[in-house]
């Protein structure tokens, strides 16, 4: 779904001039037929998204006004869940952790993906092996990644601390230290996402017309200059897409925390979705958790809208 959207916009641009030139005879009927065909193509996804996306969202919204333990009949409590959230120190903490995580993860991943893509955008022997190596973390299961990282970063027996000690640096706590755990999660997830970002950027880099670069070179522009002044600005829509996509994923961080730190030590990696899971499926406060989910939904919607607006204006301006 994600990989498709920049691709479709590119292909649409290429196809549109051709199609408008050839089909001029019965524009109106043609348009309705096209529309019908279009709806036919998207109907399965609309149905699936409606069934598994929209209905649960609406249902969560309803539950958020209830005291609901998922077993006994629910009880209407009005805005009580939302009021309680306002006074919940753990919820406040989880928001802070989510914001810190997002503020670190998104820019680091964006820049690192861009640089990796630039490094991979060349014709040298064995380049596909390098590209594969960068992409492998993306297709590796989060659970496997998490378990391997907890072993590598074990404070007493981990390979990483052994290496640090070899070069005379002290051992670190990583996942076990409350002041390092969140940053360790940032590091681990960045490693997992760079491949995805690099893949998108690589595709975009290769779509930049080479005559533009040649023209720049004729005018005496260096390779690095052409990269920053021509390729990067031309990829703005792609950067915008990645920004939105990475932000949404960062705000919904869960799996990595679940398999490595379980929100600990001492709540230091409790992010909003992990806390929500804990409330809903360990404590069975489904109404309370649904209220959190609704707030998160609104937050993500607002942030995404702002980001889309910003990147669109930049792109057009």
């Amino acid at each position, binding site marked *: 779904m994600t990989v498709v959207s920049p691709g479709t916009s590119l292909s649409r641009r290429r196809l549109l001039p051709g199609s408008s030139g050839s089909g001029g005879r019965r524009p109106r009927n043609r348009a309705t037929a096209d529309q019908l065909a279009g709806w036919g193509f998207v109907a399965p996804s609309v149905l699936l998204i409606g069934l598994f996306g929209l209905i649960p969202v609406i249902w969560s919204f309803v539950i958020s006004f209830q005291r609901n333990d998922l077993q006994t009949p629910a009880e209407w409590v009005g805005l009580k869940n939302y009021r309680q959230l306002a006074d919940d120190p753990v919820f406040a903490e989880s928001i802070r952790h989510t914001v810190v995580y997002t503020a670190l993860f998104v820019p680091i991943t964006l820049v690192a993906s861009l640089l990796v893509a630039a490094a991979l955008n060349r014709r040298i022997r064995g380049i596909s092996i390098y590209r594969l190596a960068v992409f492998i973390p993306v297709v590796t299961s989060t659970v*496997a990644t998490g378990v391997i990282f907890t072993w590598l970063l074990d404070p007493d027996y981990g390979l990483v601390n052994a290496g640090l000690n070899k070069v005379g640096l002290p051992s670190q706590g990583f996942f076990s230290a409350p002041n390092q755990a969140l940053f360790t999660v940032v590091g681990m997830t960045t490693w997992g996402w760079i491949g995805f970002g690099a893949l998108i950027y690589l595709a975009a880099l290769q779509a930049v017309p080479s005559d533009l670069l040649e023209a720049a070179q004729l005018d005496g522009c260096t390779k690095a200059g052409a990269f920053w002044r021509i390729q990067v600005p031309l990829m703005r829509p792609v950067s915008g897409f990645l920004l939105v996509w990475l932000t949404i994923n960062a705000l919904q961080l869960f799996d990595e925390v679940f398999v490595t730190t379980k929100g600990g030590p001492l709540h230091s990696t409790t992010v909003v979705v992990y806390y929500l899971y804990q409330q809903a499926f360990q404590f*069975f406060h489904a109404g309370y958790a649904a209220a959190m989910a609704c707030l998160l939904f609104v937050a993500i919607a607002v942030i995404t809208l702002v980001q889309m607006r910003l990147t669109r204006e930049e792109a057009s301006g």
Partner: protein
Amino acid sequence: MPSVVRTQRTIRKSLALVSAAALVIGLAACGGGSSGSVTGSTTITVWHGYTDVEAEALKKLGAQWNTEHPNGKVNLVFDGGNDGALQKTIAGFTAGKAPDVAYEYGSSVAALSRQPKLVDLTERVKDPAFKWDDFFVSEREASTVNGKVLGVPALVDNLSLVYNETLFEQAGVPLPTPDWSWSDFRSAAAKLTDKQKKTFGWAYVNDGSEDTVWRYLALLWQAGGDLLTPDNTKPAFDSPAGLAALDQLKQMAVTDKSVYLDSGNGNYLNLFNSGKIAMLWTGPWDLSSINEDVKYGVTLLPGYNGDHQTISGPDLYMMFNNSDAKVDASWDFVKWLISPEVHLQFAIDTGDLPVRQSETELPDYQKFLTKYPGNKVFVENLKNVKHARPNIASYNEVSTAVGKMVQSVMIGQSEPQAALDSARDEVTGVLAGS
């Protein structure tokens, strides 16, 4: 909650299984629950989360039951793992596909006690032929919520001290004895710790989960304390006993640094196997994962003023009413499954402890002891289970607060009394809110 650890063993064995479990959690979160197809009106569906040898042994018993009872067959359904059984069962209710019988952790019984479909077994266990008194006290307590019997024992275990004899010999430390005190334990652990060789005297699962909590509870009870007041309305662990237990942990983990703090991925057993950790407080489920070349012994937990009591995490079979005929059929099957002869067969196949006291008097019990010599102490230690965890619906929240308290002391982040104070306030809030 012994099977928390049980699943950790599975992590070590197969990552694929864990991702399957994660997928199941995902499914449960979506509210979808798949159950086995029910064919014929008297076929009952039994959900379980057993893997490996236990799954095979259960399947064998299920097949035996089905050949003997062509009109009352049993359909065994793997629910993705016992760790997610509670979530899966509740998702099943929401989806309208509840099982007739489900294997559940003892700590889940209070949460499920609110379930309208749950079958109250209080009258049924009174049947003299069932011999309810034959079960160990800890099992009966774990099955009972507010005087009602809501499940029957499926598995029982306890924590005992498992030690690597070779490491003791190498360090010149005398082997643990059943009358060891806390300070004997502490000083031995310190002597067995070697910074250069990276060996630790003891390992503690310090992820703040129930796995962290129940080892603390054993210490708390030995010192004469309890988690909550007898009516389960207020915290009681902020006591001299609660402080003594936390002090012991602090002295070992922070002062002596003789404890390996496991992050919850179950690394402690690999390290025990490779001779890096000398002692574990663990249950019978770990014995089958100890390598053959490791010479180990099992004894009672070290005690406080001669009190060596331990903690047990009994798991249960719980029944749900989908129709009266199915309830009767389910009861017949469960009764048979935990009858002395049948369960002893299961114990011999799997190494799980007997759930009934009378199993230890059957002739075949010797086969069990010969096959699993390490289990002898675990069976005897069942007598030392004197307390049960409180069966209250908010137990998971209480456990989370206490787990955080222990964790903060073990990593040297809080002083014991300060940690007790803040956990007490948190638990007070939880109990007042429920």
